[in-house]
């Protein structure tokens, strides 16, 4: 992998502005309070609650990467994003693969 790029892009140098940090902060607080409210008040059916809080966690993840980490900005950011995307793929295979295998194993042992 060639990381000796010659262009002097803002690789990690885009450190955001006060405004972007405040927007990120308010959004992440909101995205924490809404699922907390849904869960503690039992406002919705159980499957909907599961789906919604997972959705809010993913949104929260995106908000934090964009507004706090600033790795997706600048000319050289493609390597950061590529590493991140590769990690997410490995991560999803690990987590959902484990769940799938272990659920089947459990099912076959019990029935």
């Amino acid at each position: 992998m060639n990381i000796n790029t010659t262009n002097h892009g803002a690789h990690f140098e885009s450190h955001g502005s006060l405004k972007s940090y405040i927007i990120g902060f308010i959004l992440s607080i909101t995205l924490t309070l809404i699922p907390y409210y849904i869960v503690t008040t039992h406002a919705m059916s159980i499957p909907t609650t599961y789906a919604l809080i997972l959705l809010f966690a993913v949104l929260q993840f995106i908000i934090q990467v964009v507004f706090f980490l600033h790795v997706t900005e600048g000319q050289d950011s493609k390597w950061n994003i590529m590493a991140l995307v590769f990690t997410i793929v490995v991560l999803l295979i690990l987590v959902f693969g484990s769940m799938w295998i272990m659920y089947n194993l459990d099912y076959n042992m019990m029935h």
Partner: protein
Amino acid sequence: MNITNPNSQHTHHDDHHHEEDKKNLFGFWLYIMTDCILFAMIFAAYIVLHKNTFGGASAHELFSMPFVLTETMILLTSSFTYGLVMLSAHKNQTKMVLLWLFITFILGVVFIGMEIHEFTNLYNEGHGWDKSAFLSSFFTLVGTHGLHVTSGLIWMCALMGQVMVHGITKKTINKLACLSLFWHFLDIVWIFVFTIVYLMGAI
């Protein structure tokens, strides 16, 4: 605080050091990605084992939600205040950097204090890590995150010392930027701990 032009004081070093700083940060980013895999494995273990309570208490009975929400808010706020550290650093405001670092550090210490409080309470009430597969995986997951936060706090202390001695230089900014990636990363991991362990446990 002057927010009109955050790049105004940003003096560019010679290209060699510039490239090196960029490589440092990219290398640190790759380390964080491997840390993600570590957490993914512990999350997978928790998800698989969390129903195996061996007749003991389940997640639903053990956790106090307002307490966990407070922990989450503290960690989110510390992530925001660390953002302010970076903004001040790029504006060359040494005193503001130290002030925000200190506030972030205090918030981190409060978070760890609350976690230790939760762990000792659970243990004293007979819900130790040796009681069931669920509790083992819970203590491993939340404990690993706590250890990361603790090492982040030690690192933060070291950086406060360096900023006090050397001031804001290219080198200290680079180190602060590495810790910023680490700190925001821990915040993101906690969001998933909050969702998967605590919120899903309370449904």
